């Protein structure tokens, strides 16, 4: 199924990726080509088929539910583009 330019603008917004107006037409074409191609899956009857949830059959592992105090604040924030006093900082969200 093809997508139109408004749909591309909408999904770019959902994905939080800015696209310029010049980028919209080529992206629309690329995405439509790919979506048209995957459309062939509709040929397959999947009426009584369960969707795959785990690629290798295995039992879900359990672990102890314990609190750990590793004191990793420095390591956690050391790669942040902006941080202050061990906190991540972002533009003001609440007026």
């Amino acid at each position, binding site marked *: 199924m093809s997508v139109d330019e408004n749909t591309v603008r909408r999904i770019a917004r959902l994905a939080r990726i800015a696209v310029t107006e010049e980028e919209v037409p080529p992206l629309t074409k690329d995405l439509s*080509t790919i979506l048209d191609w995957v459309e062939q899956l509709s040929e397959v009857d999947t009426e009584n088929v369960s969707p795959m949830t785990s690629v290798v059959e295995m039992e879900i592992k359990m672990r102890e539910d314990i609190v750990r105090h590793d004191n990793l604040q420095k390591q956690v924030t050391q790669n942040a583009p902006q941080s202050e006093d061990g906190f991540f900082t972002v533009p003001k969200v609440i007026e």
Partner: protein
Amino acid sequence: MTDLTKLTLADARAKLVSKEITSVELTEAHLAAAKASDKLNAYVTLTPEIALEMAAKSDARIAKGDAGPLEGLPLGVKDLFCTEGVRTTACSNILDEFTPPYESTVSANLWADGAVMLGKLNNDEFAMGSSNETSRFGPCLNPWKASDSDADLVPGGSSGGSSAAVAAHLALGATATDTGGSIRQPAAFTGTVGMKPTYGRCSRWGVVAFASSLDQAGPITRSVRDAAIMLGSMASHDEKDTTSVDIEVPDYEAALTGDIRGLKVGIPKEYRVDGMSDEIEKLWTQGIDWLKAAGAEIVDVSLPHTKYALPAYYIVAPAEASSNLARYDGVRYGLRVQGDDITDMYEKTRAAGFGEEVRRRILIGTYVLSAGYYDAYYIKAQKIRTLIAQDFKEAYEKVDVLLTPTAPSPAFAVGEKVNDPLSMYLNDVFTVPVNLAGLPGISVPAGLSSNGLPLGLQLIGRTFDEETLFRAAGVLEEAAGYSAEPSTWWNEA
């Protein structure tokens, strides 16, 4: 000195143990070769100080009689594996100068067994690509050139730096990852061995995530034995990855008995795709004859849903990628581009940080997961995946392994397919079904094309039966007697 780079990992191990050579000598030889290989662009970060320090420690342990299974062997690491204190970027601008304060489980296993880190290797951005052309560091080149052209060729992808470095003798072996063929296709393009183990065999902890239900780490080496040695160290149960399996890692090297008498080898008829070149077809037939001559029984099998694997993959993988890559928001690590408000900051950061192919896949993934389309695309694709896994399961009631080509063509030129996503995706037609079903697969170099480029054959095994796969691959390797080497046109030493 340069002769030391000609050794296989197994031979180098023997010479280290017998004290014929030292790890420092071996490591220096590989560092020198790597430094003279800028034209290939295989390494994105070379770590000579770390390498020489690790090598000296290895020599000390060997002297004390305290050597690990990989003691003193210099290896390259795909830039998708987090390495403590060494910049890790997944070859994406969005990770900027990210320097992990921790080590991936797979690489930690290698170092614990004594291996030496030479540096980080190029790959397609976030492992999304089949040519290593989407890297922020620019394309990595294939050491091989066609006999009838001087054009630069791609080393395959996404683990192009790994395959190029191993083929060009810039490392004894390299770690790689495979989501849809990213270990096996580059191995086929460069005349190397690429092993993707069963999903769950290697821990994914500390490996930059692309599509979590498909991603799996494995080695690229110059021989099947070397791959068996490396995987033995890479694989482990890890409580930090709940999908890593809690079963013993067998001695893969011991599986290389050279005896496949009575082994049942399946030939899936659906892999005879339209437009497959005569030479690929011929090589496949040759592979069948080799295994038959070694005592295997050849069985025709059918995997009826094969043609739907690639389109299903291009729903599942982008869907998981769009979710995994949501973490790159300019807050906790990596690039930040300032904006008018927080949403503007997210959007500008992600627009600047992601390359074209990654953006394309995030948008496809966002679309197929969005309200109203989830069932039609994502659930449909996961149902197809069930059917593909069932096809394999039925085939394995009759056979032990499957033999197919690895890729539909030899290496192609840089620039040839990068602007045509669909033709790029078709490179993975023989490898993608294996990931969708979580199976192990190995590519073995088996011959040269008419214009002198490496071609690979793929063996696919049962879940967690890497041993049989290694055994069959060893016989295939022996029969093919592949010993071709590229000319060293890139060498500036």
